């Protein structure tokens, strides 16, 4: 019903007040500096991810959702991983209203192609605020952008 959301949506999740958790919004910030194709939109969804994917994806148009977030999978800080909605264990993500994010993603996955690009964080101060992304995660940002560009079919001829 609305042409605000195109075929491919890239959602950067996380909170820049918690150190490396600012990874998702930071990637989106840098993506916005690039000229993305018309069928792609990058959104900094911050702390509203679960609400966003229920109400803001366009039913008729959106075909692909790429989620950018930190994921703790026990690797070296700055390592990237690619996950599908099925790979997320239930309850691994908790959103503000005690719903976990995996449930909405699992409900959506038959309608929209969902991909999660996760980066292993180094420093997420659990309850204290701290602004700033660690060097390892910072170094992963350009690589993440390359992965995303490849995923959405942008060929700059330099990767």
């Amino acid at each position, binding site marked *: 019903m*609305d042409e*605000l959301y195109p075929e491919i949506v890239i959602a950067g999740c996380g*909170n*820049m*007040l918690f150190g490396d958790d600012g990874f998702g919004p930071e990637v989106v910030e840098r993506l916005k500096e690039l000229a993305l194709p018309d069928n792609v939109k990058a*959104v*900094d*969804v*911050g*702390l*509203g*991810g679960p*609400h*966003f994917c*229920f*109400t*803001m994806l366009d039913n008729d148009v959106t075909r692909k959702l790429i989620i950018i977030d930190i994921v703790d999978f026990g690797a070296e800080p700055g390592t990237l991983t690619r996950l599908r909605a099925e790979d997320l264990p239930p309850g691994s993500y908790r*959103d*503000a*209203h*005690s719903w976990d994010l995996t449930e909405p993603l699992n409900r959506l996955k038959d309608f929209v192609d969902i991909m999660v690009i996760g980066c292993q964080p180094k420093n997420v101060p*659990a*309850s*204290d*605020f701290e*602004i700033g992304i660690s060097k390892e995660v910072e170094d992963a940002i350009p690589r993440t952008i390359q992965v995303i560009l490849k995923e959405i079919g942008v060929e700059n001829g330099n990767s």
Partner: protein
Amino acid sequence: MSKVVEVSPTTRHEGHSKLVLKVNDDGIIERGDWISITPVRGVEKLAIGKTMEQVPKIASRVCGICPIAHTLAAIESMEASIGCEIPEDAYLLRLILQCANRLHSHALHEILALPDMYLPGTDTKINPFTPEEPVRSVAKRIQTLRMVGQTVGEIVGGEAVHPSNPRVGGMYTNITPRAKAKINDLAKMALPLAREQMEFMIAIYRNFQKRDWAEVGGKEIPIPKDLGYHNQGYMAVDPVYGSSSLDENPTWFPERWTEVRPWDWYMGEEEITLEDPSYPVGGTTKAGTKAWPQMEACTGVPLYDGQPVEVGPRARLVQYKNYDEKGTIGQHIAREMELMDAVYKMIEAADALNCSGAVVPDVIPQGDGSIGWAANEAPRGCDTHLAKVRNGKVEWFSMLVPTTWNFPTCSRALEGAPWQLGEMIVRGYDPCVSCATHMIVIDEDNRLVAEKLLE
């Protein structure tokens, strides 16, 4: 002989909180303490030394449900401190944002409140996620209303969740005539939906009022006629938008506000002597565990005229529209009554907006360290931010957020209800706990002694 029961954590609201309840032999609450257990983060500490442009961005990231309210309140507290008046069109854009935020947040609360309610004429509780009618269409309507709120928020605010367009002095950019037309179309589409939704929800709540019992954990719990009643006052600064210290007639009065420690307000150490494994979800805390509300609470206790007050939709309707229904259901109904108002105001503001008008003043002062405050009527109530800005840098910043005001008030409202319905009373306030968590310590003369940050 009183018994103590603890529900931890409470569910279906934002953040982490718990209930410690002293109950009599019939399970009726004699004294209730509703406390925040979200750890203190110290956002006020983080703000010191940052630029006045950056602090509202930080405030916005405290919560993903009402980032618009925090952004606007923080920006306006900076403007109040530096003495900066914003152009009319910037104000109209902010008003549209405010209404968009209220529309999507109130609709979200319906999803959280519905599972406590019954389908009229049956003993079946409502599951908002069921694919069956009539609930399916209701859920779709709620999502459409939220989509309208968030889309309008994105058009005006520049981002779907955390708005990037508002700035100290006004807005970075005005919107195009096409965007204005889009807002009008969306709002006009939402208007009949908001009416249907309000009428449906009020019917559901009225039906609940007629019931004698509610099922909790497999038991029939009697519903008292005065569920959630309290005798505290109300605080609201505006029916829709807000007030700040720049106003000719401000409607919030810092001199009437004091903040005391949870130590002086909540119960001391108690041993839990009543447990109910059948209570959803996963039973209450085991008997023999210790609870210590006055030490565990992570919020200060703000008082207005020396008393806790209620803020939120009902407070606004009581102050400005002579609304007089008390109790939890009264609160829910007040919230529904605000849905259409939010859409009407959005349309009015969009009509009045001049898309080629200036949205930033010619000069933005950099501040001399005077204190300024701004109170924004967020979906959950009055969100007051206070700031001191000198040479563009923030020297002091404090957030007095809606649920902080409601914690002690709701604790009073718990008395007299069966303990199993305690969470239902809490949900009437649509709590948002993450941003409500911060603490200061003051001595007897109300001087700030130390910021207390708990692990």
